[in-house]
């Protein structure tokens, strides 16, 4: 696990690797070799633009990309709302390759633009690609999601999903009817939203680090 200040450039992955990027914009191309797995967790509270490309170059290469973000522009003036932009890509360039690209985040008084692309090349048989973007909007926020698929091989599994939701009033009402304050009910709902994303992160140290930050932030949010 490493935490970098500014991340950029091209990185070759030849063995199973876990990377963690926190609060910094990134512009990286990972090239993943045969039978190697890249697990990349990106946690962002900053406005700005990140671009992460994963080339599944070797046979049997795998990538798991977890993007978790929290964009809070409360207090910022109209017109200066923070904007978060993420461009994530997986290119399946060999057979039996696997990709999971996810982006889960909350936008409060800000904007998010999540672009995703999974490309399966003609020679990438038996590949499996999946991308998913979930955005939760609180107060004033806008979320744009562009999850693209380009598939050139028929012997593959590939799908994507995208949701934009708000805090469910009915759930909040239910929790309040059981004696919780509105603030506590909202906290539970937000934690629940992030828990789904965090549970998918297999590295425990990273999981705990992000959960710690989110817990603190939620206090300010609700």
């Amino acid at each position, binding site marked *: 696990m490493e935490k970098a200040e500014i991340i950029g450039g091209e990185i070759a992955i030849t063995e199973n690797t876990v990377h963690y990027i926190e609060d910094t914009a990134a512009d990286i191309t990972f090239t993943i070799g045969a039978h190697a797995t890249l697990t990349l967790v990106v946690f962002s509270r900053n406005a700005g633009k990140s671009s992460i490309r994963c080339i599944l170059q070797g046979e049997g290469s795998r990538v798991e990309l977890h993007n978790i973000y929290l964009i809070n522009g409360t207090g910022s003036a109209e017109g200066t709302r923070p904007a978060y932009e993420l461009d994530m890509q997986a290119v399946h360039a060999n057979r039996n390759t696997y990709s999971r690209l996810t982006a889960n985040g909350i936008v409060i008084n800000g904007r998010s633009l999540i672009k995703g692309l999974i490309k399966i090349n*003609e020679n990438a048989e038996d590949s499996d690609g999946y991308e998913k973007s979930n*955005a939760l*909007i*609180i*107060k*004033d*926020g*806008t*979320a*744009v*999601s*562009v*999850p*693209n*698929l*380009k*598939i*050139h*091989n*028929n*012997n*593959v*599994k*590939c*799908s*994507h*999903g*995208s*949701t*934009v*939701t*708000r805090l469910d009033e009915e759930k909040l009402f239910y929790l309040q009817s059981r004696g919780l304050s509105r603030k506590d009910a909202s906290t539970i709902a937000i934690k629940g939203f992030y828990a789904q994303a965090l549970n998918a992160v297999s590295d425990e140290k990273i999981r705990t680090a992000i959960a710690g930050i989110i817990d603190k932030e939620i206090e300010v949010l609700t």
Partner: protein
Amino acid sequence: MEISRELFDHSDSISAKFKIPQGLSEEVIRKISAYKKEPEWMLQKRLEALKIFAAKEMPNWGPSLKDLDLNSISYFHIPDAAHNANAWEKVPEEIKNTFERLGIPEAERTALAGAGAQYDSQVVYHNLQEEIKKQGVIFEDMDVAVQEHPDLIKEYFMTKCVKPDLHKFAALHSAVWSGGTFIYVPKGVHVEKPLQAYFRMNAQSLGQFEHTLIIIDEDASCHYIEGCSAPRYSTNSLHAGCVEIIVHKNARMRYSSIENWSKNTYNLNTKRAIVEENGIMEWVSGNLGSGVTMLYPASALLGRGAKADHIGIAFAGPGQNQDTGSKVYHLAPHTTSTVKSKSISRGGGISSYRGLVKIKEGAKNSKCSVNCDALMFDNESESNTYPTIDVQEKDVDMVHEAKVGKISEAQLFYLMSRGLSEEEALQMIVNGFIEPIVKELPLEYAVEMNRLIQLEMEKSLG
């Protein structure tokens, strides 16, 4: 009814009564307008659109249009038939044969309330059963409607729904449009049987630019079906039609179309609906033919509680590029939309879903769900999904899902172990895949759609 590709690709030897030389100019447009004896305001509208057309750029996204030469297209063409013969007997034998083979009079006799068939640029046959005429329903050739219902046309024709400056081909359409259908359903009237028109291009290198304008007044409802095909020539043809639908308060409209243009047609069509308070708009689309299709039916949900359903299927075979999708604009609170799209690509065909869902700020409690499934037959083919989802309001629920896959060996093996041939098994799986869309079509169209797909599939096992 026998259906084969040849049947649709067949070209009749018809002498043109009035044909303007190829290419586009102010003179051509004045000639079209003069031939139609149009009022001055329509001519002005055309000329204005021509200026917009000249100023607009070609689309710089999606399939390549570099082989489409807009100067070699013939923009107007009238077959030698009495305009709007209202009895089938008056229609010339050859044209009648074409329509007979496509099953139109048969369909009309049995199920449909009225059928308009567009042969090249004019409607040669148009009929509306007496009973709905009495209810005040207008089902008319667009050219006739300009003369007979100028107030409605002036108010709605490319003013509210599709404006000529929407894009280059909308401007082109507005400049050279000819024929098409006008439907007006008065307040509270429910047209029980579907109305239908069949469009067909016959002349070589012909552009077809029919305009469909449908107005469903408050509390009324209607179902309109369009089927389109063109014979095969070696030069490229262009179809740049336009469909405008206005669904007023509490009204309901269903628009179904199966487009089966020949493989060298560029189908660059514009379809748009505006839906007022509590109105419901349903689009059912099938795209089978054409070399290049760029078609994105759009719904603008203007009124509170308005609803749009889009269901579509695209089939891209060898040499075909089906670039289709749905656009939904949520512009008012409590609006809902669902988009269901299925695509099949085989033999090097490219099918792409290119869609847009936009939820404007203030469209509180809006709901939207988009679902795309793609089936790929082989490695030469391509399947793409480009959905854009733009949510500017926090009180919304938006879900998008897409899946791309192939026919599983296990499914095939199972069906073949039950005694089906490989071909039958494939067809059964494909029929199951498209079933949710086919079941929304009236019977005759469902049968036609299934047969056409079957036909495309037969070639796949060559």
